[in-house]
């Protein structure tokens, strides 16, 4: 009898588990992760690879919004539309549905290099961490990875200043670092109202946010590999929106293999933002990112 009792109690202990009762939202206050150095917070870039023909992708965009709601301005999102099967515009006979071509040359290049859409969409990268074997993250993994990234040291602080035809990036070195770093400056557009497949529906007035439009530069931050704390590196970029818009239109028109249709214009400058980030060219890891509305 004793034997059976001990066996039974052993079973009961081993089989304990955590049944959660509602309410499910905790009341814990969220303490924003504060690794601020010289008043620069650690910010994280979430690259959401998506497509307007991808019915599961709006869930990823909503997860990105939820992460942004929790952490605030420390989360910077970028939606990159890629792949023939998920982002091709429908033929003209189907107008007006799915006529826009959201793809860009740089988005396609990143997709090829990092191998994202070949694994199916939605999929994304958080600060490009985990390259080359663990960087393609499904949306359920984003929250954990974001919180890991936010706990890291802040090595750079980025300031963005824009005028109607130029952008000045001030990269402030906060810690002594060594290595090859590149600065990337992109333009994104939000509030694009257009078609999107969402679950079981074709949604006509879906709001597309932070969609990648162009990459202005992707080049070495400085000619040296030694960065001293306190140093500031200024980068000046001249741009012309009309020229950039035409570039995308031409890219789409010439992209016949991937069924581009040239419908990549209609940019709305007042809804555009600049995203600048610094990454290590060996590990691909993004060390700091900043976003600013395009003052036009």
């Amino acid at each position, binding site marked *: 009898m004793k034997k059976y009792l001990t066996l039974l109690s052993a079973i009961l202990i081993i*089989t304990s588990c*955590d049944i959660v009762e509602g309410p*499910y939202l905790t009341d*814990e206050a969220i303490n924003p992760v504060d690794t601020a150095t010289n008043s620069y917070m650690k910010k994280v870039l979430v690259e959401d690879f998506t497509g307007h023909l991808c019915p*599961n992708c709006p869930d990823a965009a909503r997860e990105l*919004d939820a992460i942004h709601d*929790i952490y605030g301005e420390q989360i910077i999102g970028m939606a990159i539309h890629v792949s023939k099967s998920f982002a091709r515009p429908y*033929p003209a006979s189907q107008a007006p549905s799915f006529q826009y071509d959201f793809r860009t040359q740089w988005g396609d290049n990143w997709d090829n290099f990092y191998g994202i859409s070949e694994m199916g969409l939605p999929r994304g990268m958080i600060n490009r961490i985990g390259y080359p074997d663990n960087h393609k993250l499904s949306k*359920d993994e984003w929250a*954990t990875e974001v919180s890991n990234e936010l706990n890291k040291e802040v090595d750079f602080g980025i300031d963005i200043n824009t005028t109607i035809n130029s952008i000045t990036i001030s990269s402030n070195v906060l810690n002594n670092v060594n290595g090859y770093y590149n600065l990337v400056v992109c333009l994104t557009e939000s509030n694009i109202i257009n078609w999107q497949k969402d679950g079981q529906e074709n949604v006509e007035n879906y709001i597309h946010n932070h969609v990648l439009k162009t990459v202005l530069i992707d080049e070495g931050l400085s000619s040296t590999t030694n960065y001293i704390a306190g140093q500031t590196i200024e980068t000046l970029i001249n741009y012309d929106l009309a020229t950039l818009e035409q570039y995308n239109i031409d890219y789409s028109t010439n992209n016949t293999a991937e069924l581009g249709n040239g419908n990549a214009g209609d940019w709305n400058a007042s809804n555009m933002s600049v995203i600048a980030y610094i990454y290590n060219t060996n590990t691909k890891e993004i060390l700091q990112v900043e976003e600013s509305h395009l003052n036009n």
Partner: protein
Amino acid sequence: MKKIASLLMVFGASFSGFSQELNTGEIHGDFDLNLQSYQEDELIGATAANEVILNNAYLNLNYIKGNFATGLRYESYLNALADYDSEFKGNGIPYKYATYSVDGLEVTVGNYYEQLGSGLIFRSYEEKGLGIDNAMDGVRLKYSPTQGTYLKTFIGKSRTHFTYSDGIFRGADLEINTNELLSSENKIKTILGGSFISRYQERSNLIFKIPQNVSAYAGRLNLMYGSWNYYGEYAYKINDPSNVLSASKMNYARGNAITQNITFSKRGFGVSAEIHRTDNMTFKSDRDKDGKAYLINYIPTLSKPHAYSLLALYPCATQADGEFGMQFDVFYKMKKGTFLGGKYGTKLAFNYSRINGLNGGNSFLNDNTEHSPMLISIENEELYFQDINLEINKKINKKIKANFVIANQTYNKDFLEGHVKGDYGVLNSTILIADISFKIKKGHSLRMELQMLNSKQLEDYSAHVGSYENGLEEPAEGDWGMGLLEYTISPHWFFTVQDMYNYGNEITEKQLHYLNITAGFIKGANRFEIGYGKKREGIFCVGGVCKLVPSSNGFNLSISSSF
């Protein structure tokens, strides 16, 4: 000379003593290599492989001595075949174990496979054809305390590709065979079983309460009486939400699944009926990842596995999150000499299966919504898959044997392939197959297969059906034909030529032939096969778990050997 002779005798005596009294153990294993070349072929959409050839190779080695065994498996992917997960890269020894048994206790350390009950809550297994191998790494104990009771318990982490998943599993199973236990000769045989599995994964969600230990329980009953056999298993899983921050996606509903089958069999006649219902039963080894490499339980699809290619063109994947299925099989042998049976007898196999969704979707529970689907609902729910088929097997005379199949399948392409409802619709296919073998002379045989598939859209199921010209990814394939000729020379040789022809494709340029030739040599424990040709892009499923196979054009080589 005398010295040599006596030394030789001593050695000779001890040598024969060695091999009889001291069991020195045996080494056995098997080797498998699959290699394929990939050429560019725009017509069928095949892309070339930069590596020119891709291959998977495995070597299993086992050493057995009495009640002790140890072994390992070497796997090489340089690089893996195109239909395998790209995480299979490089070489390694991902499987190694040591096991011994003494006085009824069996201990295994290292890697092992295990299944609890029918696998509803836990199954660790390998299916090389799919690229699935979620072997456990840890410790497993099996013990039979009394006659008729079987206990097993284990702890471990589950394998994914070349690493192990985050979750730590602990499980136990107890099975009681009442007839053995009570040493009775009762006409009704009963086997009872209960199993438990729990996954520990640290919680890390900022705003939601997430359980660290997610457990599942299952109870099963097997009753046998004469020609009848009943098996039923019920499984229950506690809340298992993903670690996300979108409130609408958090699902705290419990999971449950039930499977039951009844069979009746006697000489010349057998019947089997099954039913199953799953609700929220996706169980993964890492709650945040997705993909078939992370599945830790096994809920097989309730449909007949088909060997003929056109019958398996549109296979059904299990919806562990919510489906209701039923299946019915009849096997009958019409005796020889009867009118229908003919001179040698005729065998019939009839199968019917139907799978539909749950009323309103699977169970859902969070702070804002609560939904619990009805227990049994068939008519009004979305049909996922239906298959009605009849196979007739007949020996016509001493030289000719024939197999005929007639089938009708309904395949909800929108739902099963993750498309928006109405884009591709629901396909209904009627399939006819004739498989005839001729014995040419002793040891030489010629087999011919002719298959035909006639496909159409089911109007009432589709809201609107798109087309390739209007933006859909793939054209409607329409009708297919297939022909195969196989010449075999027993016991060593086989040669096959086969062609699948998509003559019904909506786009004329896509009405393609997929021609393939194969030759093989088998001798004892070795098998060599070489082939060349085109393969259609498709979905390959085993047991309800599926993988996408890209179209390819090239030659393939496969070598397997056991020693």
